[in-house]
C-alpha cells in the first residue's frame, strides 16, 4: 500500500504532507490551497493524522465504528432488526476557520429570519403574492401549501423553530445555499453524535484545537421549546413525535428525545380530547403543550390532512390552529422547501426585510418565466432540473448526464409544464479529505447547517453535518443514505470558557416516569420474547446433549423431550403428532433454531425481541445496546453454523446466545432503576417463565415412564433449568418425581421455580399505578395471581406425582398445570386491557362521500 502517511515510526515533528490526492480542475479544496499546501486552519489536524500513521488512523476508524454501533447509531432500518446499517462516519472532521464561519453564521441567521417571515406572509396576508414578488402560481400549485393552516395562531415569538440549510462552496470557495429543510429538518442529532464519536477517538486533538462546542445549540432549543407554551407553566410538557422505528432517521429521533430529556412518542401515543393534545400513558392521559415533530406535514392529522396516514394524530391541526398545542415546526412549513422560491429570494428579502440577502442561494431559473425558460432550454447541459416544489417523488435531472433521447424527453417535459420546473447551476462542491483504504482521498462535500429560533432571532449551530460522496464518481451528494458524514469543526482563536462536552439535560422526572403505553407494552413483550428464547434454548441444548450422549437415549424418553420442545416453542404440531419426525428429528430441530418465519423458533423470538427493543430504543441503556449487538453477532454465528442443517455439535453455537441473554437479564437486575419500564419488562419475563415452566412440567412429567427412562426425563428437565446439581446435592437418596416437583414448583428459594415467578408477580402488581375507580378490593388480575399462588402452595406433591394407571398419566399434575396456564393467560390479557392502548385506527367518516343531488 503506497501511502504518504504510512510511516509508523512517528518522529516527533513529521512534516505535514502536501495534498496527497489530485483535485478536479477548478474545484475548491477545503484542506489544501492552490499550491496544494495545507491551509493554516488544517495544519494541526493534518500533522496529527501524520503522527497517527496508517495503523493509528485505521485503529481510530475501527473504534469510531464500534462506538457508533454500540450507540445504536443506525440509518434506514430496512425492516431488519438483525442487521441495521450503521451510520457512516469519516473520522477526519471538516475544518472551517472562525473568520469564514462568522460570515456564514450571519447569513444563516438572516436566512432563517427571512424564511420565518415568508411563512407568516404565505399563511397570512400573502403580500408576497399580491405584490407580485413571488409569482403566485409557484405557491398556489405547491401541494405543500396547506390552505388549512391559514390563520393559525402562533403563540411563540417565532413560528419557525428549526431550519436546516444545505450549503456548498463554489469554485471561488464562497458558500452558497442550495436547499432548505423546514418541515422537520433532520441531521442535527447525527451531527451531535458525530461530534461525540470524533472527540472520543481523537481526544487530544479535539482538546487542543479550540473547537466551538455544540452544546449551546441544544440548550437554546430547549429554552425555545419551553417558551412556546401558550399558557403560564413552570413545567412545559414537550414530546418528540416520530413516525416510528422504521423511519430512516429513527436513531436521531430517539437520540434527540434522550438528549433533550423529552418522551419519544408516535402518533398513536397521542390523542386529542377536549380540544387539547394528550399522551396516553400508564397513569392515564397527560397533557402535551409542545410537539417537536419529525413527521411530515401531510401525515400529521387524518381528520383534515391525509386521511390515509397511519402516523398522525386525528384532530391535531385544529388544536394547533387554536394555539392549544404548538408544533415545531408549524404545520404547513413544507411550502418553504420549494426550490421555486430560491429564484426570487433576493427580491423577497428586500421586500420583507428591506435588506439584501447575505448568503447567496444557488442561481435558480423558474421556467414559468419565459426569459428563464429560454435560457434553460439553451443551457440545459450546465443545469440541474428540479420540480418547482418539493415532494417525496422529487427527482433532479442533471443536464450534463443526458443522452440525446433523455434530453429530448426533458425538453418535452419542460415545454409541457414550464411553471412546474426550475433549473439550477451545478456546483460540484469543495473537495474534502477522507480516510479511505488507508490513505487520504478527496471527495466533494456538502454541509447541512442548523439554526434554532431564540427570542430575538436565530442561533446557528457552530458546525453541522458535513457529508461527502462515497465514491469519486458521484457528482453531488444528495441524500443522507449512500454518503459518508463528517464532524464539522469551527476553530476558535481562543479556548472556550464554557464547560465542555455535550451535556445531557436534567430529565423532568414526572414526565420521564410517565411513559407512553406503547413503550410499556413493548418492554413487556421485550421481556417475554427474551424469556421465551432463553427457555427454548436451554431445553434445546439439553436435548442435543442427550441425543448425542455416550449412552443412547431410549426412544420413549427422546419422544417426550422432543414433544416437550414442540409444546414449549409453540411450534405445533411439530413432534407431537408425527412418528416419522420423531425418528428423524434433525431437520425439524434445525428449523426450530434458525427458521425465522416460524413463530416460536429461537430466531423468530430473538427477532421479535430485537424489534421491540428497536421500538423503545430511547429507553435502552448504553450497555444494553452493546449486549443486543452481541446478540445480533451470535445470531449470525448460529446462522452460519446451521447453513447446511444441523451441525455435528449443534449445541455449541447456542451457548453464546444463552450467555448473552443471561447478561441481559443480569444487567436489568443490576443496573436498571426500578421504574415502570423495568417493572413491565420484569412482569413480561416472570409471566413468560411461569407459563413455560408450567408447560414444561406438564409436557415432561405428565406422562409416566418406567424407571430408567423416567429418570432420564427428570434429569434432562433439571439440567435444562440449571437445577441438576442442586437437586443431586439435596436429594441424595434418589430421583423421585416428588423431589423434582418440590424443587421446580414450590421452592421459593429457586429463582426458576414456578412459585418464585408467581410470587414476584404478586409483588410487582402492588407497585403498579392503580385505577382510581377500583379503590375497593382486589383487582381481577391480582385475584388471578393470588389464586395461582394458592393453587401451587396447596398442592399435594405425592398426589401430583401419583400415576393414574388406567390412563397412564399423572392426571392431577396435568390438570393443575393446565389450570395455572389458563389463569396466567387470563392475567396477561387483563393486564394488557388495563395498561396498554387498544384504540383501533380511525376511519374516514364519509366512506361514500355525499353528493349534492339536485
Amino acid at each position, binding site marked *: 500500500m503506497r501511502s504518504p502517511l504510512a510511516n509508523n515510526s512517528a518522529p516527533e515533528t513529521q512534516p505535514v504532507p502536501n495534498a496527497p490526492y489530485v483535485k478536479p480542475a477548478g474545484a475548491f479544496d477545503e484542506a489544501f490551497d492552490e499550491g496544494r499546501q495545507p491551509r493554516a486552519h488544517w495544519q494541526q489536524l493534518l500533522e496529527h493524522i501524520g503522527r497517527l500513521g496508517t495503523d493509528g488512523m485505521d485503529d481510530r476508524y475501527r473504534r469510531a465504528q464500534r462506538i457508533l454501533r454500540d450507540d445504536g447509531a443506525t440509518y434506514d432500518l430496512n425492516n431488519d432488526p438483525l442487521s441495521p446499517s450503521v451510520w457512516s462516519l469519516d473520522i477526519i472532521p471538516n475544518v472551517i476557520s472562525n473568520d469564514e464561519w462568522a460570515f456564514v453564521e450571519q447569513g444563516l441567521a438572516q436566512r432563517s429570519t427571512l424564511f420565518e417571515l415568508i411563512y407568516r406572509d404565505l399563511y397570512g396576508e400573502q403580500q408576497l403574492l*399580491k405584490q*407580485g414578488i413571488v409569482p403566485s*402560481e409557484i405557491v398556489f400549485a405547491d401541494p405543500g401549501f396547506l390552505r388549512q393552516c391559514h390563520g393559525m395562531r402562533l403563540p411563540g415569538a417565532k413560528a419557525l423553530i428549526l431550519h436546516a440549510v444545505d450549503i456548498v462552496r463554489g469554485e471561488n470557495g464562497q458558500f452558497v445555499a442550495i436547499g432548505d429543510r423546514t418541515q422537520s429538518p433532520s441531521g442535527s442529532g447525527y451531527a451531535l453524535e458525530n461530534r461525540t464519536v470524533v472527540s472520543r477517538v481523537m481526544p487530544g486533538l479535539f482538546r487542543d484545537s479550540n473547537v466551538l462546542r455544540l452544546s449551546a445549540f441544544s440548550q437554546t432549543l430547549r429554552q425555545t421549546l419551553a417558551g412556546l407554551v401558550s399558557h403560564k407553566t413552570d413545567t412545559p410538557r414537550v414530546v418528540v413525535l416520530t413516525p416510528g422505528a422504521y423511519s430512516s432517521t429513527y436513531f436521531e429521533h430517539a437520540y434527540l428525545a434522550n438528549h433533550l430529556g423529552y418522551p419519544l412518542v408516535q402518533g398513536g401515543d397521542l390523542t386529542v380530547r377536549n380540544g387539547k393534545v394528550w399522551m396516553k400513558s400508564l397513569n392515564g392521559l397527560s397533557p402535551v403543550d409542545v410537539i417537536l415533530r419529525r413527521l411530515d406535514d401531510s401525515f400529521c392529522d387524518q*381528520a383534515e390532512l391525509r386521511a390515509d396516514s397511519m402516523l398522525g394524530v*386525528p384532530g391535531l391541526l385544529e388544536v394547533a390552529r387554536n394555539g392549544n398545542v404548538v408544533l415545531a415546526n408549524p404545520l404547513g412549513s413544507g411550502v418553504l422547501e420549494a426550490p421555486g422560491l430560491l429564484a426570487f429570494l433576493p427580491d423577497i428579502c428586500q421586500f420583507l426585510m428591506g435588506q439584501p440577502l447575505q448568503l447567496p442561494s444557488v442561481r435558480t431559473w423558474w421556467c414559468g418565466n419565459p426569459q428563464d425558460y429560454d435560457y434553460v432550454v439553451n443551457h440545459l447541459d450546465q443545469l440541474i432540473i428540479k420540480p418547482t416544489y418539493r415532494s417525496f417523488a422529487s427527482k433532479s435531472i442533471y443536464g450534463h448526464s443526458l443522452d440525446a433521447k433523455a434530453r429530448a424527453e426533458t425538453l418535452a417535459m419542460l415545454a409541457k409544464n414550464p411553471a412546474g420546473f426550475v433549473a439550477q447551476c451545478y456546483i460540484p462542491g469543495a473537495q474534502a479529505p477522507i480516510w479511505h483504504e488507508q490513505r487520504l482521498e478527496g471527495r466533494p462535500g456538502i454541509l447541512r447547517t442548523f439554526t434554532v429560533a431564540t427570542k430575538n432571532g436565530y442561533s446557528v449551530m457552530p458546525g453541522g453535518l458535513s457529508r461527502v460522496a462515497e465514491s469519486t464518481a458521484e457528482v453531488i451528494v444528495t441524500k443522507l443514505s449512500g454518503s459518508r458524514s463528517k464532524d464539522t469543526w469551527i476553530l476558535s482563536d481562543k479556548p472556550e470558557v464554557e464547560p465542555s462536552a455535550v451535556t445531557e439535560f436534567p430529565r423532568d422526572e414526572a414526565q420521564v416516569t410517565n411513559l407512553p403505553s406503547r413503550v410499556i407494552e413493548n418492554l413487556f413483550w421485550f421481556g417475554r420474547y427474551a424469556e421465551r428464547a432463553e427457555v427454548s434454548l436451554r431445553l434445546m441444548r439439553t436435548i442435543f446433549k442427550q441425543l448425542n450422549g455416550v449412552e443412547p437415549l431410549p426412544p420413549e424418553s427422546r419422544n417426550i423431550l422432543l414433544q416437550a420442545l414442540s409444546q414449549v416453542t409453540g411450534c405445533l404440531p411439530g413432534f407431537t403428532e408425527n412418528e416419522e419426525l420423531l425418528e428423524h428429528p434433525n431437520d425439524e430441530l434445525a428449523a426450530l433454531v434458525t427458521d425465522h418465519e416460524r413463530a416460536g423458533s429461537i430466531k423468530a423470538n430473538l427477532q421479535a425481541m430485537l424489534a421491540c427493543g428497536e421500538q423503545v430504543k430511547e429507553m435502552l441503556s448504553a450497555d444494553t445496546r452493546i449486549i443486543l449487538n452481541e446478540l445480533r453477532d451470535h445470531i449470525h454465528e448460529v446462522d452460519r453454523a446451521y447453513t447446511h442443517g444441523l451441525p455435528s455439535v449443534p449445541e455449541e453455537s447456542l451457548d453464546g446466545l444463552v450467555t448473552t441473554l443471561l447478561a441481559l437479564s443480569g444487567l436489568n437486575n443490576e443496573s436498571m432503576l426500578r421504574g415502570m419500564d423495568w417493572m413491565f419488562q420484569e412482569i413480561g419475563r416472570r409471566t413468560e417463565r411461569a407459563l413455560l415452566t408450567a408447560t414444561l412440567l406438564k409436557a415432561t412429567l405428565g406422562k409416566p415412564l418406567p424407571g430408567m427412562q423416567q429418570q432420564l426425563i427428570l434429569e434432562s428437565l433439571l439440567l435444562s433449568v440449571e437445577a441438576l446439581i442442586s437437586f443431586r446435592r439435596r436429594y441424595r437418596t434418589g430421583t423421585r418425581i416428588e423431589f423434582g416437583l418440590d424443587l421446580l414448583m414450590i421452592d421459593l428459594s429457586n429463582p426458576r421455580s414456578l412459585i418464585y415467578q408467581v410470587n414476584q408477580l404478586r409483588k410487582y402488581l402492588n407497585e403498579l399505578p392503580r385505577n382510581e375507580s377500583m379503590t375497593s378490593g382486589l383487582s381481577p388480575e391480582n385475584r388471578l395471581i393470588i389464586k395461582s399462588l394458592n393453587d401451587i402452595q396447596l398442592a399435594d406433591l405425592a398426589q401430583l406425582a401419583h400415576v393414574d394407571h388406567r390412563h397412564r398419566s399423572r392426571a392431577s399434575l396435568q390438570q393443575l398445570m393446565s389450570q395455572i396456564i389458563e389463569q396466567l393467560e387470563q392475567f396477561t390479557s387483563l393486564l394488557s386491557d388495563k395498561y396498554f392502548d387498544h384504540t383501533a385506527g380511525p*376511519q374516514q367518516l364519509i366512506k361514500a*362521500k355525499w353528493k349534492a343531488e339536485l
Partner: protein
Amino acid sequence: MRYRVRHLTEYLYAAPVTLCYNMTHLLPRDTPKQRCLSRNIKVSPTPIYHSAGEDYFGNETYYFSIQEAHKKLTIEVESIFDIDEQDLPNQLSLQVPTCGELRQILAYADTPELRMVKEYLLDSTHIHRSAKLAAYAADTFADEVSVLQAALDFTHKIFQEFTFDASATSISTPAEQVLEERRGVCQDFAHFAISCIRSVGLPARYISGYLETLPPPGQEKLVGADASHAWFAIFVPELGWVEFDPTNDLMPNGQHIITAWGRDYADVSPLQGVIFDGGDSQKLNVSVDVQRL
C-alpha cells in the same frame, strides 16, 4: 328575496362511534349579494369541543368533536338570508373582455386581484386540466368571443349534451369520464365545466349551496324535498366572479343560496373527518328545505 334554509344531516352507524373529529362547511357565508340574518347549527350528541371559524377562502367553518359513544349523529343547520337580484341583462351586454384578452390579462397579472385569481387556473384535488377537455371547450372559448357569452354558451352546451342522472356516477367522477358518459349530477357538471374552463386557460371556481325548487303548479311544496346544489363561477375583470348553473342552464339570480366556494368540492366538502369504531357500515340521511319567507 328572503329565504330560510334548513339542512338536516343524519348518520346511523352499525356500532357505537366512540370518538369523532369533524370539520364542516355547512354554515352559509356572506357574499356581496347575500346577507345572512341568522345562522344556527345544532349537533347531537352535544360536542365536547366545537369552534366556529373562517377558512382560507373566507367560508364559514364549524369544527366539532364528540367523545361520548353514539350510534346516531345529527347535524341541524338553520339559516335566514336576504339575497339581492342582479341586473343580469346589463351584465351580459358587456362584450369585453374576450377570452383572448382575458388570457393576456392573466398572463401579465399586474394587479393584486389578478395575481390572486391565478389560484383558479391551476389543477386542484378534483380538477385536472387536459388536452381532451381543452379540445371540447376550445371553440366555445375562442379568442374573439366575450367571456360572458362563452360561459353562457358553454353552460347551455353542457345542459344540451349531458343527461342529469343521479345514479350515473359515483362521487367525484373524473371530468374525462363525465365527458365520455355524458351524464352525471350537478356536482359532476360543475367539476366538468371548471375542468374545461381551466383547460382553456381561464379561471373558474366551485360553488356549493342550495336552490329553491318550486312545486308543479297547484301542488303543495314538500318539506325536505330540496337538496344541496353545486355550480360554478368564472372570473371577469370589473364584474368579479360571475355564476353559471349548467344543471339548470341558467345564471343564478336570487334563487341560489351560496354556502361556500373554493377550487373544487374538496375545499368546501360539507363534512370531513374521522371516526373511531362505528362498525363497518353507516347510513346517511340528508334533508334540505329551502323556504321563501
